[in-house]
C-alpha cells in the first residue's frame, strides 16, 4: 500500500503539528532498476541528499537474522529492516511536549517479512516529499476541511456540510445555499420556555452550559473527510477531540490522516478507514476520559468573585451556579493526557496494522494449524536423514512451509518465536545447505518440485506391477510387511532404482518409522534391526534367520533409459524374490493395508490427491498410535486396544509399531505428564495409609 499514516494535533502553542508518522518502507531494488521513475510515496524514490540515519529502537528479530539476506543494510544500520531508513527530513518547526512524540530520539520499527516491508513510526516522515504532503494534510484536516458528522451523515464526505475552507477542492457551490450557513444568528425560535433573548447575555454560566456548547461543537468537528489534489496527494482524515481537564475548553483537537497518491485507494477503503481510525480514536478518547474523570475533581470550582456579573445582578435576582475553574496547561503531551506511557507504541501498532491490512487483503494465506507428528519428527531428525529421505520438498509427507507468518519484533514489547512450520522449513533449508558433495540425490533444482509427485508415481507403478504379477498377494504382503515393522530389502544393479523404490514406499510410513539405507553393498547382520528399508546389489546375502523380510528385485529393462530418466520405475521389472514367514495370510489384513492397496490401484487417485489421501491416512493412524502410547502406561497390553476405537485385532500390530514413529518431544511430554500425575497422587496415598 502506497500510503502513510499520521497523527496530527492542533497544539495550543504552535498550531497544527504532525505528532507521529507511520510509514511503510520497502525493498525497491526492482523498482530502482526500472526505467520509469516512481511517483509513489515510497521514501526510497526521493532524490534528496542523504541525511543522518534515524536511530531506531533495537529489536530482537531473533528468528529473522539468519533468514534475511541483509543484516547490515546499505544505509549503515545494523538492525534488520527493509528499504532505506535514512532520514532526509529536517524538521525546523517549534514544538512543545503537546506536539512532540519521539523528537529526535529512537522511533519504532516493525518488519513485515511476508511483504518485505518495514513500518517505521517517527515524529515526521523520513523523506522530505512525504513530510511536505503530510504537513499540508495536517494543516488542512485540522484547520480547513470540515468533516462530515459521523452520527448525522453516517460519516459521509463533507459535500453536504459547508466545506467553505479556502481550498480548491472545497470551493464547490451547493445548490441550496441557505441551508449550509455554519452560523446564523437568532434563527432559533424562542418558544416554550419564554426566556428573553437578552437573558443569555446576562445569565450566569450554567453548570452544564459550557459542556453543552462544547458537545455541539464536538459534533461539528468529529468525523471523517477525504480531500486533496494531484499536486499534494489525497488524504483521508479522521478529526476528533480528546478530553483533557487542563486544555482550553477541556478538549484537544487531533486528526488521524492517511495520505496517498491514489484517490481510488482511499475511496475504496473508505469504510475500512472509517472503522479502523474510529477505533483508534475511541481508544484514545477512552484513555483520556479516565484521566479526565480523575483530574477534574482536583480542579477548584469557580467562586462568585471569579464571575463577572451585571451591575444590577442582585436586583434581577439571578443566582448562578459556580462552575469549574480552568487550570490551563497547554503543553501536556498525549502520554500525560492518556496517562499511558506506551501510547506511542500502541499507536504505532494501530497504524501499522491499519496500513498493513489492505495489503494482506490481496494475498492468500494458508493458516498453519496444529503440527503433525511428521513435522515434529522432522525437527528431531539428523540432517543426513533429511537429505537421505529428500524431505526438503514442501509436498513431502506434509504441507510444510507453505506459509511464512509475519514476524513482528519490538524490543521489550513483543517477542515471538518463529512458527513451527518456519522452524521445520529452516531445518530443511539447513539440511540442504549441508548436503555432501558426493550426494547422489537430485541436483537439478528445476525438477525438485516434482520429486514428491515422481515418488508417488513410482508407488503407483510398483503397486500395479505387483498386482499384475503371478502372485497378486505380493502387493498386500509388501504393504503388510512395511506397515507392521518388517524389513523391505530391494535388490538392483542400479543404485538409483533401489533408491527410488525405497523412497516411493516410504510414503506409506510415518517419518518416524522410516529407517532407510538406500544402498548397501553388503547386508550385515545388524542391518536386520537397524533398517526397515534397505537397498543392495543382486543376490544380497540376507541371512535366513531374518524371518520378517521381503526381498524385492528391481531390474531395468533398458539401462540407457535409467540414465536419461532416473526417477521413474516405469521401465523396470519388479518381482518379489523372498517373502516373510509371517506374511499375514494366516489372518485378516490390517485395515490400512487394504486402504493403501485400494488407493494405489485406483487409477483415478493420483498425484496431489494421492498425496493428500496418503497423508491423512497416515495421520489418522498416527492418532491411534498416540492413544496407544498413552494407554500403555496406564493399562496392560491386553486392555489397551479395547479403548481405541477403530482398531481391530489385525490392526494392533500396525498401531504398536507406529508408536515407535512418534516424536521424542511427544513421548517426553506424555512421560512428563504421567510423572506429574503420579507426583500429585503421592500425598493422597500417604494420607490414606496414615489413616
Amino acid at each position, binding site marked *: 500500500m502506497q500510503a502513510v499514516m499520521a497523527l496530527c494535533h*492542533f497544539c495550543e502553542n504552535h498550531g497544527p503539528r504532525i505528532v507521529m508518522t507511520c510509514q511503510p518502507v520497502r525493498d525497491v531494488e526492482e523498482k530502482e532498476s526500472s526505467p520509469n521513475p516512481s511517483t509513489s510515496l515510497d521514501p526510497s524514490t526521493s532524490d534528496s541528499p542523504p541525511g543522518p540515519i534515524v536511530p531506531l529502537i533495537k529489536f530482537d528479530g531473533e528468528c529473522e537474522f539468519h533468514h534475511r539476506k541483509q543484516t547490515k543494510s546499505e544505509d549503515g544500520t545494523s538492525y534488520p529492516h527493509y528499504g532505506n531508513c535514512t532520514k532526509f527530513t529536517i524538521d525546523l518547526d517549534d514544538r512543545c511536549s503537546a506536539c512532540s512524540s519521539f523528537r529526535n530520539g529512537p522511533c519504532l520499527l516493525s518488519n513485515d517479512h511476508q511483504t518485505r516491508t518495514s513500518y517505521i513510526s517517527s515524529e515526521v516522515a523520513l523523506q522530505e516529499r512525504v513530510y511536505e504532503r503530510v504537513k499540508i494534510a495536517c494543516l488542512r484536516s485540522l484547520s480547513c476541511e470540515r468533516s462530515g458528522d459521523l452520527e448525522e451523515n453516517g460519516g459521509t464526505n463533507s459535500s453536504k456540510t459547508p466545506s467553505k475552507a479556502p481550498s480548491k477542492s472545497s470551493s464547490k457551490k451547493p445548490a441550496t445555499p441557505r441551508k449550509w450557513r*455554519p452560523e446564523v444568528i437568532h434563527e432559533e425560535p424562542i418558544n416554550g420556555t419564554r426566556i428573553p433573548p437578552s437573558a443569555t*447575555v446576562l445569565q450566569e454560566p450554567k453548570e452544564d*452550559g459550557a459542556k453543552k456548547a462544547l458537545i455541539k461543537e464536538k459534533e461539528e468537528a468529529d468525523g471523517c473527510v477525504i480531500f486533496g489534489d494531484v499536486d499534494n496527494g489525497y488524504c483521508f482524515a479522521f478529526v476528533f477531540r480528546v478530553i483533557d481537564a487542563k486544555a482550553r475548553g477541556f478538549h484537544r483537537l487531533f486528526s488521524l490522516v492517511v495520505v496517498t497518491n491514489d484517490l481510488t485507494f482511499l475511496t475504496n477503503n473508505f469504510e475500512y478507514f472509517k472503522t479502523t481510525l474510529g477505533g483508534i480514536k475511541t481508544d484514545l478518547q477512552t484513555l483520556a476520559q479516565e484521566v479526565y474523570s480523575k483530574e477534574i475533581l482536583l480542579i477548584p470550582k469557580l467562586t462568585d468573585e471569579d464571575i463577572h456579573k451585571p451591575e444590577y445582578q442582585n436586583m434581577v435576582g439571578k443566582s448562578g451556579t459556580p462552575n469549574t475553574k480552568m487550570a490551563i496547561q497547554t503543553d501536556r503531551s498525549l502520554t500525560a493526557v492518556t496517562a499511558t506511557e506506551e501510547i506511542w507504541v500502541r499507536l504505532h501498532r494501530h497504524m501499522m496494522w491499519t496500513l498493513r491490512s489492505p495489503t494482506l487483503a490481496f494475498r492468500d494465506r494458508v493458516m498453519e494449524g496444529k503440527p503433525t507428528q511428521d513435522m515434529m519428527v522432522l525437527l528431531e531428525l539428523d540432517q543426513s536423514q533429511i537429505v537421505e529421505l529428500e524431505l526438503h520438498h514442501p509436498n513431502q509427507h506434509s504441507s510444510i512451509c507453505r506459509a511464512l507468518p509475519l514476524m513482528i519484533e519490538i524490543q521489550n514489547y513483543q517477542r515471538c518465536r518463529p512458527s513451527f512450520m518456519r522452524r521445520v522449513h529452516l531445518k530443511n533449508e539447513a539440511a540442504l545447505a549441508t548436503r555432501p558433495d558426493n550426494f547422489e540425490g537430485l541436483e537439478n533444482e528445476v525438477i525438485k518440485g516434482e520429486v514428491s509427485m515422481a515418488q508417488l508415481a513410482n508407488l503407483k507403478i510398483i503397486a500395479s506391477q505387483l498386482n499384475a504379477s503371478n502372485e497378486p498377494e505380493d502387493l498386500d504382503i509388501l504393504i503388510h510387511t512395511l506397515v507392521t515393522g518388517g524389513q523391505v530389502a530391494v535388490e538392483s544393479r542400479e543404485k538409483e532404482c533401489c533408491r527410488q523404490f525405497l523412497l516411493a514406499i516410504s510414503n506409506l510410513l510415518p517419518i518416524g518409522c522410516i529407517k532407510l539405507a538406500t544402498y548397501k553393498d553388503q547386508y550385515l547382520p545388524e542391518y536386520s534391526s537397524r533398517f526397515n528399508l534397505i537397498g543392495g546389489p543382486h543376490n544380497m546375502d540376507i541371512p535366513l534367520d531374518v524371518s520378517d523380510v521381503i526381498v524385492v528385485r528391481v531390474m531395468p529393462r533398458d539401462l540407457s533409459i535409467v540414465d536419461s530418466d532416473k526417477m521413474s520405475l516405469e521401465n523396470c521389472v519388479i518381482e518379489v524374490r523372498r517373502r516373510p514367514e509371517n506374511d499375514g495370510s494366516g489372518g485378516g489384513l490390517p485395515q490400512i493395508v487394504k486402504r493403501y492397496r485400494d488407493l494405489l490401484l485406483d487409477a483415478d487417485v493420483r498425484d496431489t490427491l494421492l498425496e493428500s489421501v496418503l497423508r491423512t491416512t497416515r495421520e489418522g493412524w498416527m492418532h491411534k498410535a498416540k492413544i496407544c502410547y498413552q494407554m500403555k502406561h496406564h493399562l496392560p497390553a491386553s486392555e489397551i486396544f479395547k479403548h481405541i476405537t477403530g482398531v481391530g485385532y489385525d490392526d494392533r500390530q500396525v498401531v504398536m509399531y507406529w508408536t515407535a514413529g512418534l516424536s521424542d518431544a511427544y513421548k517426553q511430554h506424555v512421560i512428563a505428564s504421567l510423572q506429574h500425575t503420579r507426583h500429585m497422587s503421592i500425598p493422597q496415598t500417604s494420607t490414606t495409609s496414615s489413616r
Partner: protein
Amino acid sequence: MDSDLEEDFDDYHYGIDEDDDYPDSRPTVILMGHKRSGKTSIRKVVFQKMSPNETMFVESTARITRDTICSSFINFETIEFPGQMCPFDDSLDPIGIFQKCEALLFIIDAQAELQEPIATLVEYFCRAYKINQNIKFEVFVHKADGLTEEARVETKFNIYHQVKETIKDQIDVDLQVTYHLTSIYDHSIFEAFSKVVQNLVKQLPTLERLLDVFNNSSKVTKSFLFDILSKIYIATDSEPVEMSIYELCCDMIDVTLDLSSIYGVSENGSNYDERSSSVIRLKSEQIMFLRQVNKHLALVFIMKEDGNEKAGFIDHNFGVFKAGIEQVFKVKNRGVNF
C-alpha cells in the same frame, strides 16, 4: 436626493434578500490576532449571544471559521483565523481571501505582552494592504475591562504610535487604522463592532443626514438606527456618541424584546414586528423611544421631557424618516421587509 439614492442602488450590500444565490458577494470581515486574545469570544458574544462568562470554556479555535451573518439586517461574513496560524500561508489561498476582505480586525490582548502582537499586527496589515488596498483596518484593544482608565488610554496610545511608525517604516504608507478599547463584559464590544459595520455601509452619510434631519425636526437629543438582533447600530446622527446613552439604548432594546417575548408573541411565533414600539420615561427627565422601522431595524432615540413631545408629531416625523430609509434601501421584495 433621489438621484443620489438611485446611484447607490446597484452596489447595495445590506438588507435581507431571500433570492440571493451568491453569498460569496457578501462583504467579509476578517478577525485575526494572537492566540487567546479573544477573537472567538467576541464572535460568540456579539453574534451568538453567548454569555461572557461562558467564553471561559470556549475551546481553542483550530479551524479557519467562517460565519455568515445574514438573518439580521446586517449581511456579511466573518472569517476567524486561529492565532497559531499565519493567514498568509500559501496553502490557505491568502490572495483569494483578502481580495474579498472589506475590514480587517486585529485583536490585541491589552492585559498581555504587547510587543509581539504589535509586530504581528504590522506584518499582517502590510501584507494585507499589498493584496487589497481598500481594506479597512481596525484594532481592538481587547480585555480592557481589566485595566484602569489611565492604563487603557496609555495602552491604546502606545499601540497607536508603535503601529503607525512601524507601518510607515515598512511600506511607507500612512495606513488609516482605527482603534477601539473593547471588552465583552460591557457594551464596548458592540459599540466597536458597530463602528466596523458602519464602515461597510456605503449609505452611511445619507443615513446620518436622515437622522440629523429627524433629530432637528423632533427635538431629539440622540438617535440610533439599530439592528435589534445584534444590538449593533448601523447609523447614528452626527452628534458624538456617549457610551452611557448607547448602553441605555441597548438596555431598552433588551427590555422591549424581553417584555415582547413574554407578552407579545404573535400567532406566527414572532415576538416583534414592524409595528413594535415602546416608550420609557427616565427619572432624569428624559424619554426614550423605540420605533420599529422594519423587521430588523429599529430607531431608538432619546429626548428631553419638556412637555413638547407630542406623539402625533413624532409619529409623523418617524413616518417621513421611514420613507426616507425605504428610499435608501430599495430591495426587490420591499413589501416583505419594508
